[in-house]
C-alpha cells in the first residue's frame, strides 16, 4: 500500500456517496471499503429479521454490506406519532434504507364494522385518526347517506363543516408542536396543546366528549349548537390567531428549525402523486389538489376559499402549508358562523337503517389528506363491506424515498413533517 499523500484529503463520508468514496480511496491507495458482497442479516447475526426473507424487497433491505448496520427504532420511542417500528439500515450515521413495520395498533375496525349497524359504525371509526376524529365520521356518514338516498338538512351540514374545520385547526396546530418536539423543542408542543384544549373545550360543550365524539349520524348530527356556544366560539376566534402566532414565532424563523427542515425530505409533485400522498403534503409539493374543491361535498360549494400550495416540497414547505391551512380554516369558520341557517339538525331516519343494496364511495379532505370510505350494502342492517382508505397509511410510503441520504436524527423530523397518525395507519 502506498503512503497516503498528506495533500490528498479524503472528505468526511457524510459528504460523499459510495461511488465517490470508492474512487477517492482508490486514488489514495487505500483498500476499497466493500470487499465482501452483501450478506443477509439473519437471526444469528443481528436479530432482525428472525426468519428467511419472504420477498425481494425484504432481502434488499436486510442485506448488509460492510460498514452497514441495522438500527431498530420503535415501536416504543420518544417520537409521539404512536407505535410504529422503523428498521433503518445505516452506514455510520447516514441512512441507506428504511423498512417501516406497521400493525402495532391494528384493531380490526373494518371487520368489527361488518357486524355493527350503520349508526354504530360511525362510533367504531372514531379512534382511527384520533387527532381529527370528526373526519373519520364524516366520510362514512356521507357514504351511508348516499346509500340511503337522503341528504342531511342544511344546519346539520354547517355544523358538520364547523366542527371539521375546528378539528383541522387543532390538528395542524398539534403538527407544529410535534414537529418541534421531535427536534427537541419542548415549548411549542405546550402552546399547541393549549390551543387544542381550548378547541376541545368548545367541542365538548356540543357533545360531552373531548376527543372521540359521537356526533355524526346518518342524516345529520346528533346534537345542536346554540347561542351560548357561538358566543364562546366568538371569544375563541378572537384569540386563536394570537395563539397560533405565539407558537409560530418560536419556530418559523428559528435558525435551528430552518436548518433542520429546509431541503430535508424533498418530495416532488410527480413522486407524491405516484406514491399516493395527498393533503397538505401534496399541496406543499406544488400540486393543487384539494378534495373540497376537486370533488365538493357537504357545503364546500357555498364557501369561498382557495387551494393553497407551496413550492419546494421539503419539510419546511409542509410546515408552512399547514400554517396557511390553519388560517384558511379560520376564514372558513368565519364564513360558517355568518351563514349558519336555522333548522333541524337531523333528518328523520329510523334507528336501524336498511339501505337498498348498492355501493357508495365518499371522499373527504381530512387534515392528513384524502380520507375515503367505500361501503357496500346488501339491504340488511349492517354494511356488507366497509372499507376506509386512510391518508396517513399511504403517506408513509414516502418514507423510503425521503430518508436515504439523511442522518438518523432527521428520521423523526421528516416523519413529523408528513404528520402520520398511527391510529389511521393501522386502522
Amino acid at each position, binding site marked *: 500500500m502506498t503512503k497516503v499523500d498528506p495533500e490528498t484529503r479524503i472528505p468526511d463520508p457524510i459528504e460523499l456517496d459510495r461511488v465517490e468514496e470508492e474512487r477517492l480511496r482508490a486514488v489514495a491507495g487505500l483498500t476499497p471499503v466493500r470487499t465482501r458482497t452483501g450478506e443477509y442479516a439473519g437471526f444469528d447475526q443481528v436479530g432482525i429479521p428472525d426468519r428467511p426473507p419472504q420477498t425481494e424487497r425484504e432481502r434488499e433491505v436486510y442485506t448488509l454490506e460492510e460498514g452497514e448496520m441495522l438500527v431498530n427504532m420503535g*415501536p*416504543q*420511542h*420518544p417520537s*409521539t406519532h*404512536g*407505535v410504529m417500528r422503523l428498521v433503518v439500515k445505516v452506514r455510520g450515521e447516514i441512512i441507506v434504507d428504511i423498512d417501516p413495520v406497521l*400493525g*402495532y*395498533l*391494528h*384493531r*380490526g*375496525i373494518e*371487520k*368489527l364494522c361488518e*357486524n355493527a349497524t350503520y349508526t354504530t359504525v360511525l*362510533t*367504531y371509526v372514531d*379512534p382511527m385518526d*384520533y*387527532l381529527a376524529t370528526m373526519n373519520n365520521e364524516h366520510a362514512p356518514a356521507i357514504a351511508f347517506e348516499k346509500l340511503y338516498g337522503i341528504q342531511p338538512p342544511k344546519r346539520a351540514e354547517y355544523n358538520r363543516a364547523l366542527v371539521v374545520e375546528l378539528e383541522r385547526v387543532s390538528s395542524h396546530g398539534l403538527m407544529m408542536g410535534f414537529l418541534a418536539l421531535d427536534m427537541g423543542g419542548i415549548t411549542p*408542543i*405546550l402552546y399547541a*396543546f*393549549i390551543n*387544542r*384544549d381550548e378547541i*376541545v373545550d368548545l367541542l365538548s360543550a356540543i357533545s360531552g366528549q*373531548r*376527543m*372521540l365524539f359521537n356526533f355524526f349520524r346518518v342524516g345529520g348530527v346528533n346534537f345542536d349548537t346554540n347561542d351560548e356556544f357561538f358566543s364562546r366560539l366568538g371569544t375563541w376566534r378572537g384569540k386563536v390567531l394570537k395563539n397560533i402566532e405565539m407558537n409560530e414565532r418560536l419556530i418559523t424563523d428559528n435558525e435551528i428549525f430552518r436548518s433542520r427542515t429546509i431541503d430535508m425530505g424533498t418530495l416532488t409533485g410527480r413522486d407524491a402523486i405516484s406514491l399516493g400522498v395527498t393533503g397538505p403534503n401534496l399541496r406543499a409539493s406544488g400540486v393543487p389538489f384539494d378534495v373540497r374543491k376537486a370533488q365538493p361535498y357537504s357545503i364546500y360549494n357555498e364557501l369561498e376559499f382557495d387551494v393553497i400550495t407551496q413550492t419546494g416540497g421539503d419539510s419546511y414547505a409542509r410546515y408552512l402549508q399547514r400554517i396557511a391551512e390553519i388560517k384558511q380554516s379560520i376564514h372558513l369558520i368565519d364564513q360558517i358562523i355568518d351563514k349558519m341557517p336555522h333548522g333541524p339538525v337531523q333528518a328523520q331516519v329510523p334507528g336501524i337503517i336498511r339501505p337498498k343494496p348498492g355501493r357508495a364511495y365518499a371522499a373527504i379532505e381530512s387534515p392528513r389528506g384524502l380520507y375515503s370510505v367505500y361501503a357496500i350494502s346488501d339491504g340488511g342492517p349492517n354494511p356488507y363491506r366497509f372499507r376506509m382508505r386512510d391518508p396517513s397509511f399511504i403517506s408513509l410510503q414516502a418514507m423510503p424515498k425521503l430518508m436515504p441520504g439523511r442522518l438518523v436524527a432527521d428520521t423523526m423530523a421528516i416523519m413529523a413533517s408528513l404528520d402520520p397518525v*398511527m*391510529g389511521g395507519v*393501522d386502522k
Partner: protein
Amino acid sequence: MAVDRPTTTSPEPVPPSGNGPIVIPDQAGDDSLLRQFGMEEHPQGGFHGLLEVIPTKADYILDLIRANSLWPLLSGLSCCAIEMMSTATSVNDIDRFGMFPFRASPRQADVLIVAGTLTTKMAGPLVRLWEQMPEPKWCVAMGTCTTSGGRFKRSYSVVQGVDRVMPVDVYVPGCPPRPEGLIYGMMKLHELVKQRRGQWSTFVDRGPQRTRWEGDVR
C-alpha cells in the same frame, strides 16, 4: 392419634424486638373471607385492610418520595396517549405531581401508563418494556381498551385488557378518560405507593390468554 387441627392457625404473637415483622395477632389470618377464597397464604392475603409491617418514619418518608416523583414511561399507544399528553401539558399539569419527565427508557421509569389499545402484535414489546423496568414499578391501565378491550371487545387482534399480560394497579376508565380522571387515577396510585400495595411482586405469569369455550374450533 389424629389431632383435630383448626384449618387456620393464627400466628404466634412475636414480641416487638425491632427486627422482623410485628404481626397484630387478633386479626391477621382470622378472616372468614380469606378462608372462603383460599387466600390465607396469599402474600397479599394478610393485607386485608391492615398493614403487615408497621413502617418506621424512614419508610414513610421513602414512600412519600416515591409517590411524589413517579416518572412515567412514554408508552402512549393510541388516542389515550393524546389525553395523557394533554394531562401533561399546561392546562392540566401533572408536573405539579412530579411526573414531568416522561422517560423514554424503561430503565429509568417508575410507572407504566398503558395509554391506548394493546394489540397482539404490540403485546410482546410492551411486556418486554414492563420486564425491563426496575422495581418498584406500578402499572396504570388508562382507558377502556386497556381495562377490558373496550370498544374493540370482539376484535381478533386486540388484547382484551392489559391485565392479561401484566399486573395492573390502577384502572382508569373512560374513552378516553378526561385529564381530570387520569389525575384522579394518579392520586389513587399515590395512595398505593404510600401504602406499599403494588401488584408487581404478586403477579403470576400464565402467558397470554384467550377465552377458550367448549366447542371452539378456532
